[in-house]
């Protein structure tokens, strides 16, 4: 057995046929008898206190179910890490999209007029909208100091390095909010009956997050809350925490009305009210030796968390740990801080803090290269982490990664050197300037530090009456291929055909808590558990004498059928067991931050049109080491899709804020790449394997989000000779910078050179 007949091959996507024939059922496709439609009345001001709520008489209010905070049976919060975010505001308003009242009606078209006919009077309070305002503390909008969370990572004694540095190089970098823009808007259906409790069906990533939130909100025991994931039309982190809010709202309306209630946001509401990527600011101060080696540095990483704590502490953690990039820092001090503003809470988005701090690191490397007088290639090569060295959290690199080799291959396949020379000549004349840029980076797979230990995920595999095998996990499919790859793993582990394995639709009454589907953890952590639970099935059959060590798929099926017929059930469970040598200190933020890292070198080629100041990405090379690639087509799909989002992050996707509200909350005005906006994205894998993941896999989902933005902005600087340290980088910004430079007449030299 185990000649890996299935893992590593492009089996058909488990739910693919339903998707290509339009038969897959998403939450908005669901209709229950007697179902009402729900809507949310939101605050319209960024901060204040509710004075009075008036229901205008133009609406027949008796036809509506109306829910306010007073109707909440349990605790008025969305239970997550902290419990600071109310489900419905009863008094204080802390951002302009805060839910205040819920309405339900059988005619969905009646709702809009009713929402508009509720007028709320406020005593407004001063609000703050930027990290700088938050840090100044002139208005305290959260806690005692506007600070959700801080981390301090210290390695060596960075205070000693400044005096012996040949260069001290500073830079400040920032990234903007980014909307996940899954094409399926958020939505939930809830139904309640006193005996069974509450059931919600929805578009979501983390069934047990919703479960936990509903228990607290509805004051119900675990067995009276059921959460079912429907087919989910994209998530990217955007359906990690906010679905708990919508589920809570639908549940409250269902409990009050006694009828099923559907809440599906329209695009404008989804974009304005739900989470986005945290805006960030990173400051680097780096000491280097004459030969371009990093001696040490200080990194200050700050993110804007919006009005409530939600996931900011964990986004901050990942961002801080990734802030040093794939480089060796003999000494470093990383100060990380998440601050409050009066915008809707920012949340998870693919990469989860990594794309923010990595943008800064990789822009800073190019800046260092210029000051030191080395090429962007050479500066990276000289500072790459090597096996045996330690990361910023003093985690020893045990993987036999050779970043220099990755870099060489990326340079070669992108024809970096040739293009550099060509562009140097071509750029002399003409209104189009070309450039090429590199980003090298890493991304940790799984929860940070002790996270996986706390999660303690459980996975089940079931032998079925028909002899097939079914996987029981709460890990969700939202396009990445969870179902397909977990079935591959189980089939491989048991020596079955891929078709012999199915996977349960996540339903908390049926599946154990295998943890949230986030953090590039599914294939590596959950996959390993599936492998182990699957082997448990074989163990049971073997111990019962029904199956030997080697068997055909048919023999397995017969044994499984016989066992179930005789015993009623055949189930095997596996629970996460932390590797024994893993050390993590939550206090000092030191140790094994992640069980494994994926590594990558991305190279972007751009041209900048000086007539319109717009940037085209002409070629993109994405080379990564992600352990064993379990499904080549899905893996390429993850990388290309992530790069596309990264290109959007860098060049297109700008949230326009006014008083804490998104102004461009329409697909027409928030610009994501179309089919005509992307270059060829050429994907290459190195496969070193990994002891922690199923069949050697590591995380892949988030990695491709980290590299495109810095690679592209590095390429733009290469093309224009103008520095850009902030994204999204719009043509207007390029115009401004070019104009400013031509007014100054020469390039600025701003670094401190000792």
């Amino acid at each position, binding site marked *: 057995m185990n000649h890996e007949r299935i893992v590593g091959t*492009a089996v*058909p*996507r488990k739910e*693919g*046929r*339903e*998707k*290509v*024939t*339009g*038969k897959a*059922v*998403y939450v*908005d496709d669901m*209709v229950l008898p007697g179902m009402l439609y729900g809507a949310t009345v939101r605050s319209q001001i960024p901060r204040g206190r509710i004075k009075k709520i008036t229901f205008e008489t*133009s*609406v*027949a209010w008796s*036809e509506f179910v109306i829910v306010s905070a007073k109707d909440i049976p349990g605790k008025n919060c969305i239970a997550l890490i902290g419990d600071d975010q109310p489900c419905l505001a009863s008094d204080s308003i802390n951002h302009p999209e805060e839910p205040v009242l819920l309405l339900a009606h059988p*005619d969905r078209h*009646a709702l809009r*007029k*009713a929402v508009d006919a509720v007028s709320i009077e406020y005593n407004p309070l001063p609000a703050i909208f930027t990290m700088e305002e938050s840090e100044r503390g002139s208005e305290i909008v959260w806690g005692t100091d506007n600070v959700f969370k801080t981390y301090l990572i210290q390695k060596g004694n960075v205070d000693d390095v400044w005096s012996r540095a040949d260069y001290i190089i500073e830079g400040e970098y920032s990234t903007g909010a980014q909307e*996940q823009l*899954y*094409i*399926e*808007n958020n939505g939930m259906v809830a139904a309640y009956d006193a005996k069974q409790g509450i059931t919600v069906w929805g578009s979501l990533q983390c069934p047990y997050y919703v479960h936990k939130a509903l228990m607290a909100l509805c004051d119900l025991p675990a067995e009276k809350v059921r959460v079912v994931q429907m*087919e*989910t*039309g*994209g*998530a*990217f982190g955007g359906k990690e925490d906010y679905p708990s809010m919508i589920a809570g709202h639908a549940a409250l309306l269902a409990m009050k009305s006694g009828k099923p209630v559907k809440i599906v946001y*329209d*695009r404008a509401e989804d974009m304005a009210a739900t989470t986005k990527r945290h805006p960030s600011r990173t400051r680097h101060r780096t000491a280097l030796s004459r030969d371009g080696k990093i001696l040490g540095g200080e990194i200050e990483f700050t993110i804007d968390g919006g009005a409530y704590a939600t996931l900011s502490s964990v986004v901050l953690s990942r961002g801080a740990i990734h802030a040093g990039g794939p480089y060796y820092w003999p000494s470093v001090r990383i100060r990380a801080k998440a601050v409050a503003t009066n915008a809707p809470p920012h949340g998870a988005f693919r990469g989860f803090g990594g794309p923010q701090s990595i943008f800064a690191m990789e822009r800073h490397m190019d800046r260092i290269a210029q000051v030191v007088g080395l090429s962007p290639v050479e500066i990276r090569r000289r500072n790459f982490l090597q096996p045996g060295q330690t990361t910023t959290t003093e985690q020893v690199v045990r993987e036999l990664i050779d970043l220099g080799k990755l870099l060489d291959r990326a340079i070669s396949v992108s024809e970096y050197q040739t293009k550099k020379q060509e562009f140097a000549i071509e750029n002399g004349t003409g209104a189009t300037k070309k450039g090429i840029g590199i980003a090298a980076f890493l991304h940790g797979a799984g929860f940070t530090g002790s996270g996986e230990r706390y999660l303690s995920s459980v996975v089940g595999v079931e032998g079925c009456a028909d002899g097939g095998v079914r996987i029981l996990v709460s890990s969700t499919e*939202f*396009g*990445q*291929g969870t179902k397909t790859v977990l079935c591959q793993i189980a089939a491989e582990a048991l020596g079955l055909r891929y078709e012999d394995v199915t996977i349960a639709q996540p339903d908390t009454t049926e599946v154990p808590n295998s943890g949230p589907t986030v953090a590039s953890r599914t294939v590596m952590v959950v996959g390993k558990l599936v492998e182990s639970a699957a082997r448990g099935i074989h163990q049971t059959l073997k111990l019962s004498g029904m199956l030997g060590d080697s068997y055909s798929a048919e023999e397995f099926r017969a044994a499984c059928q016989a066992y179930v017929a005789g015993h009623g059930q055949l189930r095997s469970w596996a629970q996460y067991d932390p590797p024994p040598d893993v050390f993590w200190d939550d206090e000092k933020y030191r140790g094994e931050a992640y069980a494994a890292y994926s590594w990558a070198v991305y190279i972007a080629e751009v041209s900048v049109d000086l007539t319109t100041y717009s940037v085209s990405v002409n070629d993109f090379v994405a080379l990564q080491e992600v352990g064993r690639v379990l499904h080549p*087509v*899905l893996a*390429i*799909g993850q990388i*290309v*899709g*992530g*790069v*596309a*989002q990264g290109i959007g992050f860098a060049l297109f996707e700008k949230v326009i804020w006014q008083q804490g509200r998104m102004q461009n909350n*329409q*697909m*027409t005005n928030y610009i*994501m*790449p*179309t*089919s*005509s906006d*992307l270059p060829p*994205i050429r994907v290459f894998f190195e496969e070193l394997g990994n002891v922690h993941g199923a069949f050697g896999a590591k995380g892949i989902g988030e990695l491709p989000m980290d590299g495109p933005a810095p690679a592209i902005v590095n390429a733009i600087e290469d093309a224009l000779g103008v520095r850009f340290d902030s994204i999204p980088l719009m043509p207007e910004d390029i115009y401004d910078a070019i104009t400013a430079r031509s007014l100054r007449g020469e390039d600025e030299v701003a670094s401190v050179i000792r």
Partner: protein
Amino acid sequence: MSSSGEDRSKSEISFTVNGEQKTVLAFPMERLLDVLRLQLGLTGAKEGCGEGECGSCSLLMDGTLVNSCLVPALQAQGASIVTIEGLDASAGSQRLQEAFLECGGAQCGICTPGMILAASHLLNKNPRPTLEEIKEGLSGNLCRCTGYLQIFEAIATAAGRETAASS
């Protein structure tokens, strides 16, 4: 409903959907998308943006690709409509669906019905499109998962097989 002011009566609107004659009772300004999804249970067309930007609600009306969120029901009177549910029938469509499966053209699946209809519309007009023509043919259909490349590949693959099958 009483609060909405004067009620206006619904109209009988007849059209064919996926080859079947249908008559629905609808307000003339109801969106064709809603009529298909809520009255006829054809939920393959999805609402992504409600403003004709994302293409998830694409369908074929008298052989042309349209965004059904922008079509008032009355304008469908007498039309022949094909949705993803009706696309199954032809061999060409099946080739397209198979190619989407094989090449990774569908991830989360929400844009997929619209994408396949746009692709089908493209191949009907232009059986051997170039990459640029494929890109243009899909430019009104947004996909957030795939970065489009595997969709292009799926369409090129289906087009290649189509040509092979017909020669």
